[in-house]
């Protein structure tokens, strides 16, 4: 095995810390941190999925929170109808997300740049308003999830169990994205981002690969949505508001686009900063905004880039 660099050590330390959150929270009687980190871990999965297409594939999808919403509503609606089987809910969430991503991707991936951003945003807004219009399921106000998902061997009622499930999902997503970005498929995605014209010249029609990446990312993100609905015992259109999609992009950019651990770094930093700053002042975004800007301007590779400075090359 290669020796770890600064970013590898940071990631390892962070993951060990994440594993230790529930016992630490219990020891110090700080349940609040368990909840905070549950959210961190769930959103990291969402950010990992976005990083696949945004970071590695160069597809700036401005509607990614939609898939979180799809996953959350899959839980909300099925539990409303008395179906609480977690596996079935998971399968439903992933299937709907995959179909949505396939349809949206098929149309939007024919465009580039700003058009792509606008089209993905437009579709996400459409789905958002569909959710608002679901008056039976609470419409704008959302819908309470009365019973959490039941996975047979385990339920998600115990906060520590939910946390570890979310952490396991996050680690699985991390593993999958690591394998994928270094696979033949992943190299095609990277190539398409780097130089699509050359890709065509050497014989790649990249559209179907980018579409496949888009579908994988959306499907993975829906899993985060399933967990989020269980975590908050509630789903509402706000989950897929366009500002939530913006947050996801910020997490990925902040952490370092197209780096394996970037989404983890970015999500941890984003949610902790949000927590700390909003404790100081209501107008925390006034501090957060410039901070982000500074990082993006001075550290183009995000947090991962800062950590990697000392050690040249060798990502993923």
């Amino acid at each position: 095995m290669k020796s770890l660099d600064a970013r590898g050590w940071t990631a390892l330390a962070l993951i060990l810390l994440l594993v230790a959150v529930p016992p630490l929270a219990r020891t110090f009687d700080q349940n609040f941190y368990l909840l905070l980190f549950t959210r961190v871990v769930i959103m990291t999965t969402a950010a990992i999925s976005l990083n696949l297409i945004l970071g590695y594939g160069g597809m700036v999808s401005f509607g990614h929170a939609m898939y979180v919403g799809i996953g959350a509503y899959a839980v909300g609606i099925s539990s409303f109808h008395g179906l609480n089987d977690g596996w079935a809910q998971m399968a439903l969430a992933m299937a709907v997300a995959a179909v949505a991503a396939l349809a949206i991707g098929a149309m939007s991936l024919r465009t580039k740049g700003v058009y792509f951003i606008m089209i993905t945003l437009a579709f996400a807004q459409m789905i958002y308003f569909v959710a608002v219009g679901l008056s039976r399921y609470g419409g704008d106000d959302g819908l309470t999830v009365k019973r959490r998902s039941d996975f047979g061997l385990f339920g998600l009622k115990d906060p520590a169990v939910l946390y570890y499930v979310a952490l396991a999902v996050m680690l699985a997503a991390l593993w999958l994205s690591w394998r994928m970005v270094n696979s033949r498929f992943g190299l095609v995605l990277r190539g398409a981002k780097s130089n699509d014209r050359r890709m065509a010249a050497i014989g790649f029609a990249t559209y179907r690969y980018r579409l496949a990446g888009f579908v994988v990312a959306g499907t993975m993100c829906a899993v985060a949505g399933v967990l989020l609905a269980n975590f908050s015992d509630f789903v509402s259109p706000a989950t897929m508001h366009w500002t939530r999609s913006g947050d996801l992009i910020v997490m990925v950019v902040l952490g370092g686009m197209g780096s394996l651990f970037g989404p983890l770094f970015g999500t941890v930093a984003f949610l902790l900063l949000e927590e700390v700053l909003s404790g100081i002042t209501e107008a925390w975004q006034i501090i957060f905004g410039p901070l982000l800007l500074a990082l993006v301007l001075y550290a183009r590779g995000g947090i991962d880039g800062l950590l990697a400075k000392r050690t040249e090359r060798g990502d993923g």
Partner: protein
Amino acid sequence: MAEPLLTIDRLVKRFGGLTATDHLSLEVMPGEVHAVIGPNGAGKTTLIAQIAGELRADAGEIRFAGEDITRLPAPARSHRGLARSFQVTSLFADMTVEDNVALAVQAHDGHSFRFLADARRDARLRDPARAVLARVGLAERGQVRAAALSHGEQRQLEIALALATRPRLLLLDEPMAGMGAEESARMIERLRGIKSQVTIVLVEHDMDAVFALADRITVLVYGRAIATGRPDEIRRNAQVREAYLGDEQAAS
């Protein structure tokens, strides 16, 4: 004589009011190095782009190995055996040299819906990639990022990317662009080595290279082929001298 490998028949490409390719006809025979020369803006790059499938011709026909490919998109033409290099270097700048070439190998090794296996340890990609790098003189540079190569090395990688697809016809758009005399001379030697294995259309301003490598030359002016012939014929052609080779050469 054998069938031409590539036949271009009254090809037309217009950019607004400008006719960049003007009823151009051209035949490339198997095994030859066919140079295309002409002044700046004559339409050489535009022609290459149409043969490679990047630009759609407005009229006319392109036949390759007996098949009409006029409407095929670029990736499909690559799979028929066409490969091009770019006048303005166009690489995967953020990837290593070996990754660059391995990707070109991968494009011709079945589909790429393989999600889990590590492509960087895939001998089916890496071995041919290294072999191609050795052929263009970049064997030692495999692990360097493409962006970190010198200009001359980037030009070598340009050709490596095209060669890695194992083409039947190689379209080279000014392979010596921006090279010093010494580098050019070495590139000529490399191309000499390659020419026995693949048919080449060579666009080049460097006349030493053209006369050293070409079996036949077509002279392009304002999108039209004003002459085609063996190097000695082209050298003697008065119209060509006037239009392209310039007075000093005409006088000498």
